[in-house]
């Protein structure tokens, strides 16, 4: 019991039960079970490649369960999170969720973190017609078109396109208008998707693609790649990369000197304190996507309180101290599920799914409405530029001003310093 089936307020529960048992004897036990908890089950990357993000997501979800239980739970019943480590391995997913459903008898399942562990969930959810809440999956539902799937990453109904929309919109507005673009990304799932979108945008916006390359994730030195890109003399460089390559590419760009007008786009890793503080002022000028930044224009009800609580716990848990990327959204995807259960007064999968499909939700990441394919009805990928970054102090990233929102217009908080080289000074 100590190992799994952990509630957000587990400790308090145990203490409570213990006191109860001591005070009233064993007769008290059935009473404690009267309000049987509503169980939400999932696998989460607690080890393996994505464990850093997985642990942060788990922490936020536990905060949600705590919040709900403090207010008396859902439908008067406490909420319990049942989770196992999926080790970031897709092959572990079928086993974990079958156990959750058949042995632990959870009421709802939500996904773990990332596209690859969401994919194997579909057959299981579809066989039993379950509501499936997805956490940061990219275009998982494209072929399957499962109607009970809802995904929280705000990349919009067409994720591949929504992802890089801002980068291209912003670029197209600059004078003189950029003409050429280089596309480069890691040879893996996310970069591949992002580059597909970027290629299409390049065509639509009339930029000529002068370099289009993939590199293996195990690359040691990125200078040859940056040089090859530099040799094609592009105006724009769109990069879709994972954290280690993000660092390598930015470092190499600094060393080689990349005389381009805009640089960045889809680099994963720059959303986290670890890379932000290490790269420091080298980031200035880089344009990149974000889902949340602490700019005055981006102020959702409850987010600041959430982040304050999260940041207080983060240090001890050894997760990202900022929590701008995954935590609010992992809080929000269970928040939506909870709101739907409350609203329908039901644990029925069909009713809950229909409700989520039909309604707009107020969450700590703002208003969320889902499109028929389970993605956000409208993309809200922010395109930001790093400005005024100095040194490696983490506090500067907690405040407004270092990541200025350029796109979409609704949230815009500053203007692009153009070209890239100018922002570097």
């Amino acid at each position, binding site marked *: 019991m100590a190992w799994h089936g952990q509630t957000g307020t587990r400790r308090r529960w145990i203490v409570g039960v213990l006191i109860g048992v001591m005070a009233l004897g064993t007769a008290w036990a059935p009473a404690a079970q009267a309000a049987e908890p509503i169980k939400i089950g999932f696998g989460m990357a607690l080890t393996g490649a994505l464990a850093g993000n997985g642990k942060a997501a788990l922490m936020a979800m536990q905060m949600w369960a705590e919040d709900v239980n403090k207010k008396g739970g859902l439908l008067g019943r406490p909420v319990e999170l049942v989770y196992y480590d999926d080790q970031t391995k897709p092959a572990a997913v079928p086993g974990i969720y079958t156990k959750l459903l058949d042995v632990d008898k959870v009421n709802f399942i939500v996904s773990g973190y990332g596209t690859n562990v969401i994919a194997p969930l579909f057959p299981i959810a579809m066989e039993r017609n379950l509501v499936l809440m997805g956490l940061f999956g990219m275009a998982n539902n494209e072929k399957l078109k499962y109607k009970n799937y809802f995904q929280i990453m705000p990349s919009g109904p067409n994720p591949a396109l929504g992802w890089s929309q801002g980068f291209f919109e912003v670029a197209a507005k600059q004078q003189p208008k950029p003409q050429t673009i280089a596309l480069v990304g890691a*040879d893996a799932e996310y970069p591949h998707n992002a580059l597909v979108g970027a290629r299409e945008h390049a065509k639509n916006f009339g930029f000529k693609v002068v370099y289009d390359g993939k590199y293996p994730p195990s*690359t040691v030195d990125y200078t040859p790649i940056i*040089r090859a890109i530099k040799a094609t003399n592009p105006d724009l460089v769109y990069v879709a990369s994972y954290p280690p390559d993000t660092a390598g590419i930015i470092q190499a760009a600094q060393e080689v000197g990349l005389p381009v007008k805009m640089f960045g786009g889809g680099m994963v890793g720059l959303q986290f304190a670890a890379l932000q503080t290490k790269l420091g002022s080298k980031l200035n000028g880089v344009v990149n996507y974000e889902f949340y930044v602490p700019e005055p224009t981006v102020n959702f009800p409850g987010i600041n309180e959430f982040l304050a609580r999260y940041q207080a716990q983060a240090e001890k848990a050894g997760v990202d101290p900022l929590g701008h990327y995954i935590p609010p959204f992992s809080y929000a995807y269970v928040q939506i599920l909870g709101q739907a259960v409350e609203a329908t007064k039901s644990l029925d999968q069909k009713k809950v799914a229909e409700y989520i499909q039909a309604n707009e939700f107020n969450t700590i990441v703002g208003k969320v409405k889902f499109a028929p394919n389970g993605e956000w009805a409208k993309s809200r990928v922010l395109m930001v530029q790093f400005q005024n970054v100095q040194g490696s102090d983490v506090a500067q990233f907690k405040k407004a001003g270092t990541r200025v929102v350029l796109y979409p217009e609704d949230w815009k908080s500053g203007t692009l310093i153009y070209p890239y080289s100018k922002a570097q000074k």
Partner: protein
Amino acid sequence: MFSLDLLLNAIVAGILIGGFYAAVSLGISVSFGLLDIVNIAHPAFVILGSYTAYAMNRFFGFDPLLTGLLFTPVFYALGVVVYRLYYLGFERKGEESLRGLVFFFGVLFIVEVALLLAYGVDYRMIEARYVGQSFHIGVVGIAFRLLLPCLVGLMVTVALHLFLSKTFYGRAIKAVSQDSQALRLMGVDPVKIKRIAFALSIATASLAGALLILIGPVEPSIGREYIGRVFAIVVLGGMGSISGTLAASVILGVVESLTATFSGPSWAPAVSFGILLVVLAVRPAGLFGR
């Protein structure tokens, strides 16, 4: 997209990275090439070196290279312990090769997971004044981040080469796998010689680890990516030949760099391993072997 400027830069980048590869491979060149100890856990020790450099940098502000140097005795001691275990468990019983291989596989796992438990899976980087700086010679740009590892790698190579060829212990190490009987007759304990050599090979991992974290971010299981590369280098270089190891490192570095520049980087690993497979099949003694 081909140009002389690109070609030159690609070659220089390859040579720089090659110097670093040499630093990582030297340890295996000694343990595998000279002692017939298949230490596939070597890259894990290199990663351990990286994390040592990281921790010392984070908490005391030490320069990674300084840490690398300061910790060589610690790694040497670690090597003595590992060799002792290996000797007691396998070599003494004459079961070294296959079970020893499995033993090191387990050691690789243990080191990796221990680091995971201590530091988590996040990538770690290091700050140093020279990271991010670069200078130009003509059209060729050279980054300090790559130049320093290359120079240190070269220095370690030269030092090891001199040690092996000029000193008594060095020559004994070279002789130990071929003729331990003769050593015994000269009153030298071959086990002691092997212990010194193996510990020395692990000691190089301290420096190599410091170089690794200078070049790029490091996470605990990144070592696996180096196993193949490093063995490719040692086999190409002709098992235990220090100069051959250096040459093979540079060749591999340049080939990788050229593929990355000209034909799409996603084929780079296949190229280096393809070379290894072909060399193994055609000329198992390596390009520079006897």
